[in-house]
């Protein structure tokens, strides 16, 4: 069984928020020694409990009084001794300003909160204990409430500031000056570019290199051309005769060197067909024509490279274009 007093205590304990704060809690709170987790319920309680808020204000005055305790005055000899060791004493004007400034600062501590605190309070950027102290002070100080209204008007005016739009066509003017980066190519294009880059690495990088390559490529071409001219300038050396002769000699050489392999191949139907096809192709004038064409094109390309690098001089424009690329 619980008595009536016990029931009351239990009710207060159940409704924890209604129980008033202890003086220790208030002091720790004002001294900003609580963690945010510990501060939160106290802050919540203060917002709903005028009694505790008044307690906070009372303790706040104690804190303010402690902060405004006058400094003890040292003996004149002490100050003189210190000042005499300073290298360059400040001018009298600056010293007076310093004294007045310090006096004003002390006055601010003794009386009202500094305007910086009030600004931060209105912006919501002060810590919860500090905010509670300012709230408590404001509830008891009429001049500070008037001061607060002035600051609130300023904050309201600043918040009402809008944005301006630039003149039409602004975006177009900006975009006209923007260099759009080249789009990133697809993966397969990048892979192709890498292969091409590797191939380019093997190619000559200078005119001299190209001349050497062109010379090497064209030397056998010129030799072959000279040989062809010598052979085909004779009356019996026609294309048909030479082709027949070469195919006969090739088949004879093939059968003499690889007779055993050839016999095995002849036993195989597929290989036999392939061999027959090769034979047909070897005797085909079309194949000979295509081969000659490819050979001629390659020779022409090699000669062109030789000409470009040894005879013709690239124009300034082409050099510039190459450098730009």
């Amino acid at each position, binding site marked *: 069984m619980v008595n009536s007093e016990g029931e009351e205590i239990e009710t207060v304990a159940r409704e924890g928020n209604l129980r008033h704060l202890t003086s220790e809690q208030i002091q720790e709170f004002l001294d900003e020694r609580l963690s945010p987790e510990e501060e939160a319920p106290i802050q919540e309680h203060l917002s709903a409990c005028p009694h505790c808020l008044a307690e906070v204000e009372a303790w706040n005055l104690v804190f303010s009084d402690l902060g405004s305790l006058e400094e003890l005055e040292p003996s004149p000899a002490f100050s003189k001794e210190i000042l005499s060791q300073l290298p360059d004493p400040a001018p009298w004007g600056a010293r007076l300003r310093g004294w007045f400034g310090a006096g004003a600062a002390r006055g601010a501590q003794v009386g009202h909160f500094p305007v910086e605190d009030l600004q931060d309070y209105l912006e919501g950027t002060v810590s919860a204990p500090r905010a509670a102290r300012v709230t408590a002070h404001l509830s008891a100080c009429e001049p500070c409430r008037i001061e607060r209204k002035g600051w609130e008007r300023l904050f309201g005016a600043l918040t009402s*500031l809008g944005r301006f739009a630039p003149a039409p066509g602004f975006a177009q003017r900006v975009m006209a000056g*923007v*260099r*759009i*980066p080249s789009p990133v190519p697809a993966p397969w294009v990048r892979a192709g570019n890498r292969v091409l880059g590797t191939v380019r690495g093997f190619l000559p990088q200078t005119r001299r290199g190209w001349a050497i390559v062109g010379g090497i490529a064209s030397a056998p071409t010129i030799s072959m051309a000279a040989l062809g001219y010598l052979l085909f300038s004779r009356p019996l050396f026609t294309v048909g005769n030479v082709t027949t002769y070469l195919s006969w000699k090739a088949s004879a050489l093939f059968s003499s060197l690889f007779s055993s392999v050839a016999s095995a191949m002849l036993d195989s139907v597929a290989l036999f067909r392939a061999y027959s096809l090769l034979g047909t192709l070897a005797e085909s004038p079309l194949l000979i024509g295509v081969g000659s064409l490819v050979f001629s094109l390659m020779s022409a390309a090699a000669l062109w490279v030789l000409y470009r690098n040894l005879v013709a001089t690239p124009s300034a424009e082409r050099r510039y274009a190459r450098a730009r690329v």
Partner: protein
Amino acid sequence: MEVDYTTLEDKELAGMAAKGREMAFRELLSRYERPVFSLVYRMVRDRTLAEDLSQEAFIRAFNAIKSYKPRYKFSSWIFKIANNHTIDYLRKRKLDTVSIDGSPHARTSEEEAQTRLVVESHEEAPDRYVEAKELGGQIEEAIGMLRPEYRTAVLLRHVEGYTYEEIAEIMELPLGTVKTYLHRARAELKGLLTGVGS
């Protein structure tokens, strides 16, 4: 597949812009042309000049989009470029419509007054009527009388809603200096507005 650029975040848009997507540039521009222009306009108080400076700031930023680091807010980055560009301009040209007050590091009001520099305008601005209409309010005029650094801090805080830390990052200043700037700027504004009202 068609990309809806309006739904993308700034960082995504910046990434796409760096890859050459023109529409990403345009979307970023549409998002920040008004905030950036408003800041610069209130700094120089000249519409034509503000458009030129904003335009140059955007072009400078967009042409260097590959140097943007996504760990920072894009808005902070673009404001930093625009603010630096404007402050550089004001310092170089000693803009005649701006009152350049004393050193921000002055410890007392007397020191600040001693280092104060006010150069008055003798030129007729072409958009004077529009500017007078737009910047003619009491609070706008009071802001116009602040030193440029104070003005930037106040505008970033109260018009754009940036935190102190973000303002410190944009202005490349220590956090304590930003707080000091804001306190002093608001105290000056309050004094100016009280003077106007009385």
